């Protein structure tokens, strides 16, 4: 019986270790009421649950939302964080795949999504949207070696990659009324982008600003196929509740203010190298 403790101890140590450290890293991704509680003490006039805005983002969408070291950064991330800070909220982030984001919103695990959510009629039926904070031109890139692909016409019969559940794919389908372009969907951007770089697909549909930023940052051998074929308004979606209605009005006022004082433009230029916060003609 002398050796019994070995197995037991191995399991015990492992699980203790996991539990002890696990709870530490949990806080980063899951809602943790303590920041709101401590703030509440400082400002007793505000109810505790009003001080935290839970926002969702993939953390894999350069330059809208990505990680720099341990910190989540990006254009959409910084916009909502600025707005929230001005309104006296702290933002708690949940990172998940794009296909999981809307699910998290539906069941109320997060309050909003800051990840280039296009404002569409279908989505408006289900969610309240804030005013647009940026405008995304949807376009297609192809590998520079594909000299025979220069206009959208040339893509007929070819395969184009896109992110599953993203509005870009739906817009391409709408644009391509006769279904002449084959669309292949991916779980996230890097899969789609890698496949166009490896020439497994002929094109990749994404918003122009994102593509510009990626190409510039990594010197990617990609070229644009014509001009954007569609423009999207981008906003923050919220579940349809009275409480959110009031919050959206506050956020709208903040967006207006940030646009007027040039903060939105500055953030956009920081991440994209151009201003995407005013509507293109």
């Amino acid at each position, binding site marked *: 019986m002398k050796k019994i403790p070995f197995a037991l101890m*191995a399991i015990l140590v492992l699980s203790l270790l996991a539990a002890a450290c*696990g709870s530490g*890293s949990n806080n980063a991704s*899951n809602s943790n009421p303590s920041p709101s509680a401590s703030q509440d003490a400082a400002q007793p006039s505000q109810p505790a649950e009003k001080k935290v805005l839970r926002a969702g983002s993939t*953390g894999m969408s350069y330059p809208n939302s990505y990680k*720099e070291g341990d910190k989540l950064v990006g254009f959409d991330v910084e916009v909502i964080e600025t707005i929230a800070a001005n309104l006296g909220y702290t933002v708690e982030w949940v990172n998940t795949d794009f296909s999981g984001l809307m699910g998290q919103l*539906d069941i109320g695990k997060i309050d909003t999504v800051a990840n280039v959510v296009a404002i569409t009629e279908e989505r408006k039926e289900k969610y309240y949207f804030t005013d647009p904070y940026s405008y995304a031109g949807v376009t297609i890139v192809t590998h520079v070696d594909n000299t025979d692909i220069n206009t959208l016409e040339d893509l007929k019969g070819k395969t184009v990659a896109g992110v599953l559940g993203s509005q870009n794919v739906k817009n391409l389908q709408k644009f391509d009324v006769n279904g002449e372009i084959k669309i292949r969907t991916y779980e996230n951007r*890097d899969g789609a982008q890698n496949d166009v770089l490896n020439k497994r697909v002929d094109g990749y549909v994404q918003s122009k600003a994102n593509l510009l930023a990626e190409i510039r940052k990594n010197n990617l051998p990609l070229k644009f196929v014509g001009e954007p074929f569609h423009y999207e308004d981008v906003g923050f979606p919220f579940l349809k509740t009275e409480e959110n209605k009031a919050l959206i009005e506050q956020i709208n006022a903040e967006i207006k203010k940030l646009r007027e004082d040039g903060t939105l433009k500055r953030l956009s230029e920081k991440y994209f190298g151009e201003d995407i916060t005013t509507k293109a003609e």
Partner: protein
Amino acid sequence: MNFDPAYILEILPRIIQYIPITLLMAVAAMVLAIAVGLVLAFMRNSQNKFLSSGAAVYISFFRAIPMLVQLFLIYYGLPQIFPVFTRMDAVTAAIIGFGFKQAAFLAEIFRAAFISVDKGQMEACLTVGMTKVQAYRRIILPQAARNALPGTGNIFISLIKETSLAFTLGVVEIFAEAKMQAAESFRFFEAYLAVALIYWVLIVIYSYLQEKLEKYLDRPYRT
């Protein structure tokens, strides 16, 4: 070729921080799977038609549906029918999902392990006046456990790797962190390689522990 081995070293410390959450999910799911799996194995072997067919349905269902589908059902589907489930956090949902699924696989491994112990042993136990519970605890279980260990180890190893699916529920673990880091640096190959190395080391450590445990369970058979 644009390959930067130094980036692997740079990114490793950041990814390593997420080993605890990966292990927490794997270990907790394994404990749950063993408990449920044992009950299922007993139910499946039972004479009671109701119990055994119940276990059979459970096993066929949870072995059939893909892990990702099951996680979506539990985390995003259940709350739409029963709003109380919105209170369940993502880590819990992932543990339940992993545990319930692997329980179905373990049930079959355990059942095979019980069958591998000769029937005559149970009969002998009963003849010398032990109760069934005593017979299981003293004679059958120790032998079955030895036979079940290699298969059970396989289940745990696949559990460790399956935890990467929890990112769809918003749990950031090893693989998710690597993906997010790579989104900035665009060094996907190096990031994935770093993840592969970490999983490999984890599995090597686990395999070593399992080997020790196997030796321990083997003691009565050594001459």
